[in-house]
């Protein structure tokens, strides 16, 4: 081994730490911008140059009580003075009619609208949770979340059951034609979804399944070539002797599937479940094609439609984005091993 001098090694480690730290700050900037925007008052949303602190307009009501100003109309002006040349001087506001809300965006009880001296309205750094409340309320977040969770859970259940069932047939059981059929299945992985998209739409349309979740759920119960492949590879690592011993003891294939193969494959099944869940949570094109009623939107579709309708309401969009991302990040921290392992073994898209 060639030994490096201590000083060279220290320089190297400082450099790599410096580079990594700089890069991680750059990678974190979008997250910071997301959170800051979601906590900012509209009046500071489009300030130039952009601001990093979530500022808003406030009126002080008590020693430690501040109310946010959400509407600010100047109602009384100073008398207009004329200078000798006859040019009007800028008018100076004296009194403002303001709507006050608390940190959650709820109008202050009794008298939300009041007249205050204009100079009582001050700009201060104070995050507001208004966008979260509005996002969760007016946007229909709760309904969309329920819809998304329903689709995701049914899809996970269907995919895990059907893929393990089929993978069992492709690995543990031995029968003529098995491998040919398996290669046929692998070849379908090459087919881009766009080729089948249009006939599938027409099939579901003729079945009257448009504006239901059936086009998103039924296919899950008929297996997914990629996950079947993944589970088959895992099932093949189960010791053959174990299966044979069970057979000698008179175990039926059904029992071998349910009581031996399934419990031994929990890690692989967890990978399939996790990635099916993520796919459902993220899916956009499916709901876009098949879901019509707003009451049936998923989170992805709902957020995209909100963007289409109110392109400038970034506060609410960012708040909903935060709410939509947090569960995934929490899931990641709880299932890190499965997550990383799933990506490594398959290279699949998350």
């Amino acid at each position, binding site marked *: *081994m060639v030994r490096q001098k201590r000083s060279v090694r220290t320089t190297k*480690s400082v450099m*790599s*730490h410096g580079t*990594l730290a700089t*890069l*991680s700050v750059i*990678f974190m*900037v*979008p*997250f910071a911008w*997301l959170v800051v925007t979601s906590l900012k008052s509209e009046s500071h*949303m*489009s300030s130039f*140059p*952009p601001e990093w602190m979530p500022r808003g307009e406030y009126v002080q009501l008590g020693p430690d009580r501040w109310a946010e100003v959400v509407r600010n109309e100047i109602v009384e002006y100073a008398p207009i003075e004329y200078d000798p040349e006859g040019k009007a001087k800028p008018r100076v506001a004296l009194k403002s009619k303001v709507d006050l809300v608390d940190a959650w965006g709820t109008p202050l009880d009794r008298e939300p609208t009041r007249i205050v001296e204009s100079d009582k309205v001050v700009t201060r750094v104070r995050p507001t949770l208004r966008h979260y409340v509005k996002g969760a309320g007016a946007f229909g977040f709760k309904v969309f979340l329920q819809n998304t969770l329903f689709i995701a859970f049914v899809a996970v259940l269907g995919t895990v059951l059907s893929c393990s069932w*089929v993978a*069992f*047939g492709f690995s543990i*059981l*031995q029968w003529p034609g098995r491998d040919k*059929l398996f290669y*046929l299945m692998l070849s*379908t992985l090459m087919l*881009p*979804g*766009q*080729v*089948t998209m*249009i*006939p*599938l*739409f*027409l*099939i579901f349309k003729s079945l009257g399944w448009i504006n239901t979740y059936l086009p998103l759920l039924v*296919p899950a*119960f*008929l*297996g997914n*070539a990629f996950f079947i492949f993944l589970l088959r590879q895992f099932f093949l690592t189960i010791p053959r002797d174990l299966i044979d011993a069970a057979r000698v003891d008179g175990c039926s294939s059904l029992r071998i599937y349910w009581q031996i193969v399934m419990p031994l494959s929990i890690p692989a099944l967890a990978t399939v479940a996790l990635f099916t869940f993520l796919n459902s949570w*993220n899916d*956009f*094109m499916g709901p876009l*094609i098949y879901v019509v009623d707003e009451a049936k939107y998923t*989170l*992805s*579709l709902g*957020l*995209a439609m909100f*963007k289409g309708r109110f392109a400038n309401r970034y506060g609410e969009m*960012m708040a909903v*984005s935060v709410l*939509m*991302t947090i569960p*995934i990040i929490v899931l*990641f921290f709880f299932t890190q091993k499965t997550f990383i392992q799933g*990506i490594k073994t398959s*290279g699949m*898209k*998350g």
Partner: protein
Amino acid sequence: MLGLVFTGPWVLGFLVFAAYPVGVSFYYSLCDYNVFSAPRFIGMGNYVELFAEDPIYLRALWNTVYFMVFAIPLTMATALVLAMLLNLNVRGQAFYRTVFFLPSIVPIVASTVLWLWILNPDYGVANMFIRPVLNWLQSGCDAMRSGLLAVLGSLGLDPLRPIYESLGLESPFVPRYVFPPPPGWLRDPNWSKPGLILMSVWGVGHNMVLYLASLQEVPTELYEAAEIDGAGTWTKTRHVTLPMISPILFFTLVMGMIGTFQYFTQVFIMTDGGGGPADSTMFYALYLFNNAFIFFRMGYASAMAWVMFLLILICTALTFRTARGHVYYAGA
């Protein structure tokens, strides 16, 4: 028999959701079909129209190729650099790895809406960083120029300067370079695709995990042997690391190409399905979707899908051919 009981669900799914649609889709691609009336057979008409009569299709094809040529190498290089830095086994590796990985799990719709706001030309955070740099470069350039002019003046090489200046003109000896304003991103046809590429670079965490896993499997003996032969860092990277991880690089390259053909959600949301400005973000999958579900030209869209399939096969085959001899498969 029992085998078919178990594989039956997939066989059924295959027949209904793959085999039949593939056949029908090919038939539709030879038809004029708008859903409301029965398909009318027109032979190769759709395919001819694609390449001979549809400038937007060619534009979509061009945009897709542009994205492939710039985004794939850039994302692969970024992921590789990050993975190699992490592979140095610095302290806090787990922390850095999480930071770089997290962006890739943000739901696509959320990250798209976020990037739309980041790339806002006036109020976005991207230009917030670019603007001061441009200003700084501009003032640096101006300072250098006035210095040069002062030197020229003191040497008596610019005798007409007072005349220019009294006329309000710039001295022609050293023209003033004016830096362009910060990019208009999705408002500017020339900057919309770079904006999308920037967004995809943020999401490289997935490839990074793959590369890191592959880097960690390179046997240390190889590095030790190379060191004994006097190889430096660059030589080791070039002749040990890259060949050893070439299979995964190759895999991500092919997946990247397939993914670019199917690039849809991001542009659909950013441009409300329009592919603007000036069709600069009209990508292949978006134009296909629009033809199918906005214009109801199902036959035409099917033809596009088949051409896409063919192009994916060609790209994959070409990559396989080029890769032969460059990709090292251990034990193969």
